[in-house]
């Protein structure tokens, strides 16, 4: 009976939990398996129009747009220009159309006349850095320090060069990471339900429900407080859905203009071209190690490929202790849409290069791949986690422990490792309400959206634990700006931001209910005990009330309390280690991941079932980054040439290895941490290392496709 503490709220001892830290089925499960869950893209309201964007098919252009021809199509209700003058990247929307059916909207969009004059552009790193290359934009040079023109690099360059000279073994390599896409199955967009008047409801596919009213109010011409956002179910975000995007803005503008609801969602090509990518990077690294395994020096020159954006901030030497390091961190702009946050922005890219370098140094001095990591990581969490993944993956029995396989024969097997860190803490701002009705019903409310992570279930689990009920006894209400404040779901902050509010609200409600029940049970409030669906005085567990009977004693209005964020209920600092075992087909260059193991700490795990989903999913997305996924830009045409789910290859069922996700149970922190990002970091590095370990081919460019493997193997022989 963890939660019966009457002081400040705490999660209580793990051994006492009845609901928390136990596998709990998703409460959205029943309606999702029946196909009844309504996503924003499914939402249909009377009199609704369908919108379609008109996108420009060149990388950079001066243009004019004439929407009138669209209006000549019967069924097209409105067509509007969205911008004028110039565009910076392929797929940028210049106009929008809304019509009675999606097909007519498409006909309308295709009827809009866009006259454009292509301008000089660069869409690849190579061309962006070429002498005399066209400027991406007038705001900044193509290649510029991310920290501004005064940024001369981090660390002591002279000391680093000296340390390199003093090293026993030095490696030098360039690492290229292709641009990965979020590729959410539900594309970006929203339904602006506006029929004239002063109010509107937006059904959006968004990671920030509470951000939408502020963004939509302007284009709708309404007051922010009269715009409601509802996100009942959502088809994935991964960091790409933090704004309402141009599709959302256009839908609002058109709804306002015609006084009819407009639903507008990207098509798949638009989703690729303009609505979400993880930045690529080019990292030129020189590093040195001492014979005893200490990494002495690292010089890194990093270009972040963030398109018209600057890309994320993570830098080398990532989380390793390096005696002297010097890092140049540049944005290398291209005429492509800006990168967005994607599961641990910046980390997988730097982790891949760093883990590769660590292995290269280890092989150079004949060190064990696990031991060299422990030598250069100070946090004991990594030491125990590395030992655990090594054990699970079978490292001690593996044949290539200090030298890779030779790449001869038909097939080879290898193992690789990686480590990661992330914050995962939350912050203030959210609030929750827990309400007990006289009929025994319990409602737990917070406006936060559930991207698929399982927040909805947590919203019920926390009060259920507090009241001695089951999660299914509590009705969770989420995804609505009319509910208490939620939080944007990004950076793994959701759990650590909302769980404390829910705990506080549950705790306060329980105290108030205990106060009320004291007279009924003829005991002191502090002795009122909630357990197993019953309420009783601590001294008389046999003579209590059922939960329902206890609730029946409440006044007609029931009982409700709101809770706020309490910092002590959460913390930050997640650590994880992963290992991968791969098989390389030396005849074809095919890489098959056979097994991946993740050991991850994240404080108190509220729902292990959804936690495993997150960790397994992160490992599979790493397999995608490592082996399959990458945006391909046509350098001369300026367009993305693989902007569809056939040519851009997501891992499918056949690519899934045995996955083992292990909670680091030596982490005894009694506080919650988000786990969305941390397990998404080390996998690609571990896989690249495993490939090298198998056959001696060091491939420094992601994704590691068969052509690259064959080329590297050919160089070996």
């Amino acid at each position, binding site marked *: 009976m963890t939660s019966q503490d009457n002081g400040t709220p705490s999660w209580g001892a793990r051994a006492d939990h009845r609901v928390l830290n136990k596998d709990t089925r998703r409460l959205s499960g029943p309606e999702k398996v029946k196909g009844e869950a309504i996503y924003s893209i499914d939402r249909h309201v009377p009199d609704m129009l369908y919108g379609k964007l008109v996108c420009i*098919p060149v990388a950079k252009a001066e243009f004019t747009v004439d929407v009138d021809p669209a209006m000549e199509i019967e069924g097209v209700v409105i067509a509007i220009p969205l911008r004028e003058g110039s565009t910076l990247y392929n797929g940028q929307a210049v106009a929008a159309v809304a019509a009675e059916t999606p097909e007519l909207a498409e006909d309308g969009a295709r009827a809009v006349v866009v006259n454009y004059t292509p301008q000089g552009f660069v869409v690849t790193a190579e061309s962006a850095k070429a002498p005399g290359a066209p400027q991406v934009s007038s705001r900044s040079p193509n290649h510029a320090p991310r920290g501004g023109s005064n940024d001369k690099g981090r660390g002591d360059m002279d000391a680093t060069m000296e340390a390199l000279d003093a090293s026993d073994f030095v490696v030098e390599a360039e690492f290229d990471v292709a641009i990965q896409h979020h590729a959410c199955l539900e594309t970006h967009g929203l339904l602006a339900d506006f029929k004239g008047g002063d109010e509107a409801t937006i059904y959006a596919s968004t990671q920030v429900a509470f951000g939408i009213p502020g963004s939509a109010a302007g284009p709708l011409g309404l007051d922010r407080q009269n715009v409601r956002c509802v996100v009942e179910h959502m088809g994935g975000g991964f960091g790409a859905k933090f704004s309402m995007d141009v599709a959302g803005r256009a839908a609002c503008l058109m709804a306002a203009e015609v006084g009819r609801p407009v639903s507008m969602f990207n098509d798949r090509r638009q989703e690729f071209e303009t609505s979400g990518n993880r930045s690529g990077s080019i990292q030129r690294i020189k590093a040195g190690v001492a014979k005893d395994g200490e990494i002495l020096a690292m010089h890194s020159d990093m270009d972040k490929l963030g398109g018209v954006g600057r890309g994320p901030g993570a830098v080398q030497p990532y989380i390793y202790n390096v005696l002297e390091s010097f890092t140049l961190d540049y944005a290398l702009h291209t005429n492509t849409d800006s990168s967005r946050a994607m599961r641990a922005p910046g980390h997988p890219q730097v982790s891949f290069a760093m883990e590769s370098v660590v292995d290269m140094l280890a092989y150079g001095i004949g060190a064990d791949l696990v031991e060299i990591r422990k030598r250069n990581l100070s946090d004991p969490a990594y030491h125990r986690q590395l030992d655990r993944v090594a054990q699970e993956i079978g490292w001690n029995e593996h044949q290539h422990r200090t030298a890779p396989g030779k790449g001869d024969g038909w097939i080879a097997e290898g193992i690789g490792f990686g480590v990661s860190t992330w914050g995962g803490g939350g912050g203030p701002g959210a609030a929750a309400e827990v309400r007990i009705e006289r009929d025994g019903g319990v409602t737990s409310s917070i406006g936060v959206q559930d991207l698929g992570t399982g927040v909805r279930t947590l919203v019920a689990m926390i009060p259920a634990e507090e009241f001695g009920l089951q999660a299914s006894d509590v009705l969770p209400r989420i995804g609505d700006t009319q509910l208490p404040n939620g939080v944007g779901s990004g950076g793994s902050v959701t759990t650590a931001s909302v769980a404390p509010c829910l705990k506080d609200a549950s705790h306060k409600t329980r105290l108030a209910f205990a106060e009320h029940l004291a007279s009924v049970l003829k005991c002191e409030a502090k002795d009122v005990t909630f357990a197993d669906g019953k309420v009783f005085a601590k001294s008389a567990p046999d003579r209590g009330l059922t939960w329902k009977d206890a609730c029946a004693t409440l006044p007609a209005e029931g009982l409700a309390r709101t809770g706020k964020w309490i910092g002590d209920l959460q913390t930050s600092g997640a650590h994880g280690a992963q290992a991968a075992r791969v098989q390389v*087909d030396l005849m074809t260059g095919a890489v098959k991941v056979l097994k991946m193991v993740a050991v991850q700490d994240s404080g108190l795990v509220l729902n292990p079932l959804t936690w495993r989903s997150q960790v397994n999913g992160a490992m599979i997305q790493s397999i995608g980054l490592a082996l399959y996924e990458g945006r391909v830009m046509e350098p*001369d045409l300026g367009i993305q*040439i693989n902007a569809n789910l056939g040519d851009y290859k997501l891992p*499918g069922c056949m690519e899934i290895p045995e996955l083992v996700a292990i909670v680091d149970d030596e982490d005894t922190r009694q506080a919650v941490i988000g786990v969305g990002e941390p397990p998404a970091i080390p996998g690609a590095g571990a896989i690249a290392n495993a490939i090298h370990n198998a056959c001696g081919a060091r491939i420094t460019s992601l994704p590691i496709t*068969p052509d690259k493997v*064959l080329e590297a193997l050919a160089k070996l022989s």
Partner: protein
Amino acid sequence: MKSFELARPTSLDEAIDLLPKGRGPAEIDDARPLAGGQDILTEMKDYLITPKRLVDLAGVAGLDAYQSAPDLVLGSLTRLARIAADPQIALHHRALSIAAESVASVQIRNQATLGGNLCQRPRCWYYRNESVPCIKKGGAECFAESGLNKYNAIFGGGPSYIVHPSDCATALVLLDATVTKRGPRGESRMPLEQFFTLPSEGSVVRENVLKANEILVQVEVPAPKPGWTSTYLKFKERESFDFAMSAVALSARIEGDTIAEARMVLGAVAPIPWRAGEAESFLAGKPNTHATWKEAAEIALAQAEPLEHNGYKVPLTKGLIQKALRELSGGESK
């Protein structure tokens, strides 16, 4: 998709009559035949073609022949899933069975037809992008020739460098299949190998001899000669669901320690299923050893002319050839 008229004829002559009368590029978009729709609907959704009329073959009599092995007759409307599931085909025409099973996904094989699979259009990403005026769409240039040609041809390229995307085509050419087509002037029959055309030979905007007013009726495969076995090795970049990066269809008669005869067709390396005739000749009568497999692979790829980004197809295909020979010799393939 742009709207169109949907015609649903019941006879072949009626269907042919609904197809374009003329032969010019303007007429071809007047009407197109629709079988399983797994390729043509994607082309229409991408606005690569915008036919005014689709002629639905589903109700047309005479396209649904199905005679199981050993003498195989497959109407053009035969679903790929049926071919893949037929144990007789697996027994007598194993390469075809494996090829049919390797196509796309379960869902697509349930809907896709053999005729559609043989007549599907290339996957070259320049062709598949509406905004690129490539030579396959009547433009002047093959953008793949000097562009991003990772998936393009290493044999038989020019002026277009597409690779033929059909797995069944590669397997059926191996198995010496014959194809029957029908047009306004009646029916004609030809070896499937002659059905496909190189861009330098036939019309560069097509991959075969079928005219806009002709319909592929059926495919026949002779019973295998005694002692011959076959296989099809398809290499996919993504195992779950992908087109071939390279493929080897191989049949052979192995007598004791000797490869008596062999036949080899390579897929996804040329604009047509690519017959490896010199390797076939080399293999005849050779000892069945790894050294022979390696040499056959070298010979098969000797004339390859890779482009900038598809050089890997040479070692890849060599590897697949060795694997295929190993498999037919009783070793494992994967």
